[in-house]
């Protein structure tokens, strides 16, 4: 392990953890302002600080800092009969897994450091194959943009996602509170149930991609088509299961405000509660990152490959070479952008759907999700086998379909960008309010 590798690893950890924590902090703000926008109200916008005598509110973003300060200065109450050690351990156990889960998610293709040396900073690299250099002692290593480059890939995710149960359950058990125990039990049963469905919902994806490594999954999607098109059912099922795993509102049985006060969180205050709260938002970030990496093309933009843009459609090809650094940067931005958009969208579930009853959650997990995932596995197996046997002609047709879908995705991205961003900022003329008197009535 060379110095460069270690430095690169530290830098990658900084990027990934920094992104995760920052986005989670912003999500605490987004959740409140966004839900306000959905429900026709302002939401928190009053926290402010003074700069040069001017009040600065940043649309309520100051609330994030204010909340953090509040958490630190609140009384850290521990119930007298609580298990002090476990009570303090539970928030850490609940915050730890989602943070380290980000480690295996790739946020860009392999960075070929050696190719960038010797005046080739703005050179492009080959589209296929990883950085091939003559093995020498001076060669810089190829840096995969993934903190933990492991060949167990998704299994690591399952293993650590399973740890999330421990935090909630220990919190419930150690608090010396009946509501907490109920919440902890509910958390355990719910998370164990959905763990099964979550694992099985990805089996179809493994079959199609032929790997459990997340970087190879992303590369497959770049070369063929986004996973959502080859595994639509798997996408929905995994999304539902990961929603249930995040313990948020349609599935907030462990907290169950109306029945068990706050479940496993009842006896937590101050920053210990803050850690649970923060862990919840990091879980959203992680589940979004996983959805992006496995089903939404990872760091890939349509037609963007390692050597630049290559638009192929029905035999015709248009190619634009891009420097390696630019490609990597675009890929990283694409990945983080996709994660942010998906996080934003995931918040809508909480503010749209009514919560399930406890028995409905269990029935949904075991009677609906589990059989559906199994059916998806069998169906995928049959289809994959059939396509493998069908030969060249079908393969070329499918490649055509994949090109069409890539084109569709590109068009949708452009359309959505124009519609949302430009339409929201650029004024469409003076505001008019029909049917409303111009002047307020005399008081």
């Amino acid at each position, binding site marked *: 392990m060379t110095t460069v590798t270690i430095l690169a690893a530290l830098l990658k950890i900084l990027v990934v953890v920094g992104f995760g924590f920052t986005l989670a902090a912003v999500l605490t703000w987004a959740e409140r302002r966004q839900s306000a926008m*959905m429900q026709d109200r302002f939401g928190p916008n009053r926290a402010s600080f003074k700069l040069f005598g001017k009040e600065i509110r940043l649309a309520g973003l100051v609330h994030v800092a204010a909340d953090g300060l509040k958490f630190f200065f609140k009384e850290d109450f521990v119930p007298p009969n609580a298990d002090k050690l476990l009570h303090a351990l539970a928030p850490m156990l609940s915050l730890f897994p989602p943070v380290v889960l980000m480690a295996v998610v790739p946020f860009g293709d392999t960075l070929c450091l050696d190719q960038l040396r010797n005046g080739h900073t703005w050179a492009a690299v080959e589209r296929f194959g990883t950085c091939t250099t003559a093995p020498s002692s001076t060669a810089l290593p190829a840096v995969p943009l993934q903190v933990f480059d492991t060949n167990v890939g998704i299994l690591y995710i399952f293993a650590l996602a399973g740890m999330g149960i421990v935090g909630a359950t220990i919190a419930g058990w150690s608090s010396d509170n009946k509501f907490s125990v109920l919440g902890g039990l509910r958390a355990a049963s719910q998370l164990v149930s959905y763990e099964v469905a979550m694992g099985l919902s990805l089996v179809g994806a493994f079959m199609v991609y032929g790997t459990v490594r997340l970087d190879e999954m992303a590369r497959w999607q770049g070369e063929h088509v986004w996973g959502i098109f080859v595994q639509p059912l798997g996408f929905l099922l995994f999304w539902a299961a990961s929603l249930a795993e995040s313990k948020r509102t349609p599935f907030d049985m462990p907290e169950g405000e109306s029945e068990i006060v706050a479940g496993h969180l009842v006896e937590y205050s101050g920053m210990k509660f803050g850690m649970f709260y923060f862990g919840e938002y990091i879980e959203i970030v992680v589940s979004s990152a996983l959805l992006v990496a496995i089903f939404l093309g990872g760091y890939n933009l349509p037609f963007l490959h390692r050597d630049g843009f290559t638009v192929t459609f029905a035999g015709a090809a248009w190619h634009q070479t891009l420097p390696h650094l630019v490609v990597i940067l675009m890929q990283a931005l694409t990945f983080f952008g996709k994660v942010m958009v998906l996080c934003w969208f995931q918040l*809508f579930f909480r503010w749209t759907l009514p919560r399930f009853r406890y028995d409905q959650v269990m029935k949904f997990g075991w009677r609906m999700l589990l059989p559906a995932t199994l059916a998806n596995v069998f169906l995928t197996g049959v289809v994959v086998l059939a396509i493998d046997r069908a030969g060249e002609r079908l393969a070329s047709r499918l490649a055509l379909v994949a090109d069409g879908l890539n084109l569709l995705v590109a068009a949708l991205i452009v359309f959505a960008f124009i519609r949302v961003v430009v339409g929201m900022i650029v004024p469409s003329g003076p505001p008019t309010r029909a049917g*409303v008197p111009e002047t307020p009535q*005399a008081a």
Partner: protein
Amino acid sequence: MPLPLEGPIQYDRVKGTKISKPARNVVQQAYVKDVAEGIAITLRHFFKNTKEMIRNERPDAVTDAIADGVTTLEYPFQKRPYPERFRGVHRLTLREDGSPRCVACFCCSTACPAQCIYIEAGEYPDGDRRRGYEKYPVKFVIDELRCIFCGFCVEACPCDAIRMDTGMHPQPYDSRDQFVFGKSLLMSFAGADGTQQSQNPRVEPGEKGFPGITRLAGHH
């Protein structure tokens, strides 16, 4: 149904009507379509409201209070206008010379269901043209915290001396005694139209139209 007098009592099984569950097809059962529809609604609200907030086009909270969109009133900076006949803090109307119109007749304090008005009556000094004709309030105190803002005092006043047309509500103060408004404070308030006098002219002794009867002239 009469109970059987002889033999073992017959216990019937509970008879109920079976209510069939509403039939659900696969689409409803899958819950995907309904989730999508619900999210479409929240998305619509989100984009509409965010757009209006960014462009500063949101409906006016005062004039468009029931319009779609964010119509929250930002209270201390933005106030909903009170209706024309809103009963606010009391005021004492003034005569042309700046003295109160009140003649200390106690009608208002008698009519007050909350007993929040305290009046001490006094005679005008010797030589005043109003002496013997009418009295004046030496003290006129209203406890605005006791007041229930029913407006009976205004109804009861025979000389239009007390009014609740200031359009103000009591400001928040630090202590209760600050809510006890004295005569000079009540006289300092103006009506919502800005005037401190009343529309009805009061005929003073010696003026044209004065009835010429004084209290002292009567026999007591």
